[in-house]
C-alpha cells in the first residue's frame, strides 16, 4: 500500500462518507422529532438519481405517477378528517399542497422532459417531484400512528419502504441508470486527482450541514423541531403542533435524500434498490454516533466511509460484512448504558 493509494482511498471514503453523513443527519432528525426510524429514506436517493437520469435522456420519470397518486391519497385522508371533525378551515392548504402542487410539478415534468433543459432546471424539477413525497409519506403512513410505539412506527416504516421500492421497480425498471456528470473537471491535489464531482459532494454536504445548523439555531421552525425532539408533550403545551413538526422533519429528510441522490447519480450506477443500502449505511453512521448527537453522527458516517474504502482495498469480499459488523460494539455500549426505562409517552 503506497502513500498515493492511501490518499486515493481517503478521497473516495470521504466522498461516500459525506453522503452517509447527510443521510445520518436526516435519519436522526426524523427519529428525534417523530420517533420514526425512517427506513424509506434511501428510496428518495434512488427516485432522485433515476428521475434525473431519465430527464437527461428526455423521458418523463415515472415518479410523477407516484407523486400525483400519493398526493390524492393524502388529500383524501385530510378530507375524511375534515368531514369527521366538521372543520374545513385547513382543507384549502391541504388541497394546494397535496393536489395542486404535485399536479403542477407533474405537468411541468411532462412539458420539460422532451426539451432537455439545462442541468440546473432539471435538478429543480427533480427536487419538485421527489421532495413533496416526504410529507406525503408522513401524512399517509405515519401521522395516523403518531402516538404509537417506536416498534409500530418502525413496522410502518418498513411497509413504506417496501411500497416505495416496489413502485420504484415498476416505474424505473430493473436496470440501473447513471446520470451525466455535472463537470468532468479534475484537480490535482498533490499526487491525487480529485474529480469536481467528489468535491461537489463534499461541499454540498458541508453547505447542507451549515444550513441545518442555522435552521435549528436561528429559525422559529427549527427551534420548534428541537423543542419537539426534547419533549413532545412540553412542546405541545407551549403550542407547537406535533403534526407540523413531523411534516417539516419529513420534508427536510426528503430534501436531504433527494439532494444525496442528485449528487451521487453521476458517480455510480443507481438501481431502484440502491438507495436502501446507501440509506442503511447512513443509519450505521448515525448509530456509530450514538443515535443522539448530530456532530457525532457526521463523524461516525465519515469514519464509516473511510472504513468501507480501506476494507474494499484489503478484503473486498468481506466489505459489507465488516461495514455492518461495526455497529455491534456501539449497540452493546448503548444498551449497557441505557437505564431500561420505557420511554413510551402516554397521551
Amino acid at each position, binding site marked *: 500500500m*503506497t502513500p498515493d*493509494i492511501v490518499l*486515493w*482511498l481517503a478521497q*473516495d471514503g470521504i*466522498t*461516500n462518507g459525506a*453522503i452517509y453523513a447527510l443521510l445520518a443527519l436526516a435519519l436522526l432528525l426524523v427519529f428525534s422529532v417523530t420517533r420514526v426510524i425512517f427506513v424509506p429514506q434511501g428510496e428518495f436517493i434512488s427516485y432522485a438519481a433515476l428521475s434525473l437520469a431519465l430527464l437527461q435522456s428526455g423521458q418523463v420519470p415515472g415518479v410523477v405517477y407516484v407523486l400525483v397518486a400519493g398526493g390524492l391519497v393524502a388529500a383524501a385522508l385530510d378530507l375524511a378528517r375534515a368531514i369527521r371533525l366538521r372543520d374545513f378551515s385547513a382543507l384549502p392548504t391541504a388541497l394546494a399542497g397535496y393536489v395542486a402542487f404535485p399536479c403542477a410539478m407533474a405537468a411541468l415534468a411532462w412539458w420539460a422532459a422532451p426539451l432537455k433543459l439545462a442541468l440546473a432546471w432539471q435538478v429543480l424539477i427533480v427536487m419538485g417531484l421527489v421532495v413533496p413525497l416526504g410529507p406525503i409519506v408522513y401524512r399517509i403512513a405515519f401521522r395516523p400512528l403518531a402516538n404509537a410505539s417506536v416498534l409500530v412506527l418502525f413496522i410502518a416504516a418498513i411497509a413504506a419502504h417496501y411500497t416505495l421500492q416496489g413502485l420504484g*421497480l415498476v416505474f424505473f*425498471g*430493473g*436496470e*440501473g*441508470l*447513471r446520470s451525466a456528470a455535472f463537470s468532468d473537471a479534475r484537480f490535482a491535489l498533490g499526487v491525487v486527482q480529485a*474529480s469536481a464531482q467528489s468535491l461537489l459532494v463534499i461541499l454540498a454536504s458541508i453547505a447542507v450541514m451549515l444550513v441545518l445548523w442555522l435552521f435549528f439555531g436561528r429559525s422559529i421552525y427549527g427551534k420548534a423541531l428541537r423543542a419537539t425532539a426534547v419533549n413532545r408533550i412540553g412542546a405541545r403545551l407551549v403550542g407547537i403542533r406535533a403534526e407540523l413538526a413531523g411534516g417539516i422533519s419529513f420534508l427536510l429528510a426528503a430534501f436531504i435524500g433527494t439532494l444525496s441522490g442528485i449528487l*451521487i447519480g453521476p*458517480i*455510480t*450506477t443507481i*438501481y431502484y*434498490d*440502491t438507495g436502501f*443500502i*446507501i440509506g442503511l449505511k447512513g443509519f450505521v453512521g448515525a448509530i456509530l454516533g450514538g443515535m443522539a448527537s448530530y456532530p457525532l453522527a457526521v463523524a461516525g458516517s465519515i469514519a464509516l466511509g473511510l472504513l*468501507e*474504502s*480501506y*476494507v*474494499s*482495498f*484489503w478484503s*473486498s*469480499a468481506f*466489505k*459489507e460484512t465488516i461495514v455492518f459488523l461495526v455497529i455491534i460494539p456501539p449497540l452493546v455500549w448503548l444498551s449497557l448504558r441505557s437505564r431500561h426505562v420505557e420511554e413510551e409517552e402516554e397521551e
Partner: protein
Amino acid sequence: MKAKFTVVALAAAICAGLAGAAQAEIVVGVSLGITGPGASLGVHYRNAYQLMPKTLGGEPVRYVILDDASDPTNAAKNARKLISEDKADVLMGSNGVPSAVQMAQAAAEARIPMMVLTPANLTGNTLHWSFIVPQTTELMMGAIAQKLKAQGVKTVGYIGYTDTWGDIVYKAIQSHAAEGGYKIVTDERYARSDTSVTGQILRLMSTNPDAIVIGGSGTGAALPHVTLVERGYKKGIYHNHGTVNAEFIKVGGKAVNGAVAVTGPLVVPEELPDNHPAKKVSLDFTKRYEAAFGAGTRNAFAGYAYDGMLLLDAAAPAALKKARPGTAEFREAMRASLEGVKNVVGTHGVYNMDAKTHNGLDERARVVVQVENGAWHYMK
C-alpha cells in the same frame, strides 16, 4: 340416477387419469418471471412464444404460459400446476437459475422432460429429465481465454460480483487458465449496489495485470470498467456474456468503448461471416422479432426459448411414432428422443445433444463482440 352418473364419470376420470389420457395436441407448459426483479429478461422470453410455430413435429401444439414473478417457490408451484392440471407433455422455463432448478426438480419427480432456459447446473436424476438450452459459462469464457492467449496475456486481474454469478464466472475463467497460458492474480469482489469500487480497482491495478476480466452483468458491470478507465488502465478489459446488452453501453458511455465480451451469435447476426452455421436461423429470428416488437429490441434471451422449441420440434417426430401426447410413454419417448437429437441449427448455434451434459452446444455457439461507437459489434 344423477348421483350414480357422477360416480361413474368420476371413476372414468380417475381411470383416465391413471392411464394418462391421450391428447390431440402436444402441451408445452411454460413458467417465466414476467414480473418481479427478473422481469426485464422474462418479458423477452415471453415475447418469443408469440413467434412459435403452431406445430411440433407436425403435431398441433399448445403453449401454456404462467408467470412465476421471478420467485423460485412460485416456479415450483407453477411446474406442479402445469403437470397436474394442464397435463403438460414438456416443461420449459424459467429466466432465473433458482426458478429453473425448482422446475427441473418438479419435472424429474413427475418424469416429464424439461427444457431449461438458463445455464443451470443440474446433476443426477434431475439432469436425466432436463435439457439445458443456453451455453454453459465454461463454454463462453473459453472464447475469452482464447482471446487472452492470442494477446499473449500472462497475468489476469479478476473483479466480479460478490454473489454466485461472480463465483461462476471466476471458476469458468480459472478452468481455462492452463490452456490459455495465463494466471489469475487477483480475485476482487463488489456488489451491484456499491457506490464505489475505487478500493478494489486500486488493488487490481497495484498488481499491474496484462488484462482484466469483469464478472458482473448488464449495467452492473459498467462501474468497475468506468473506474478502471478513470484510473488510467490502458490494457484490455474483458466481460462475460451476462454483460452484453444496450443498457451497459448507455450507462458506461464513452468509457466502455473497446470493451470485449463473449455472447451468442444472436446478438450480431448481420455481422456474422456468411459461413457461420447459425447465421441464417439467427438473422431470420431477429428480423421476425424486431418486426413484431420494434427495431432494436433484439436480445439473446428470446433465442433460448426459440431454440428450446426447435429442439422439441426435432425430437417430436420420433416420439410421436412411439406414443400419443398426454401419455407417460410419450413423455419418456420425448426424453429419449431429445437425448439423441443431432445437428439442430438454432439461433444460438448447432445442438448435438449428448447424454452426459444434456447441453449439446459447441464453439460455434459463441462469438466475441466489442463495443465500438456505442454498440456491440462482431470481433474477428
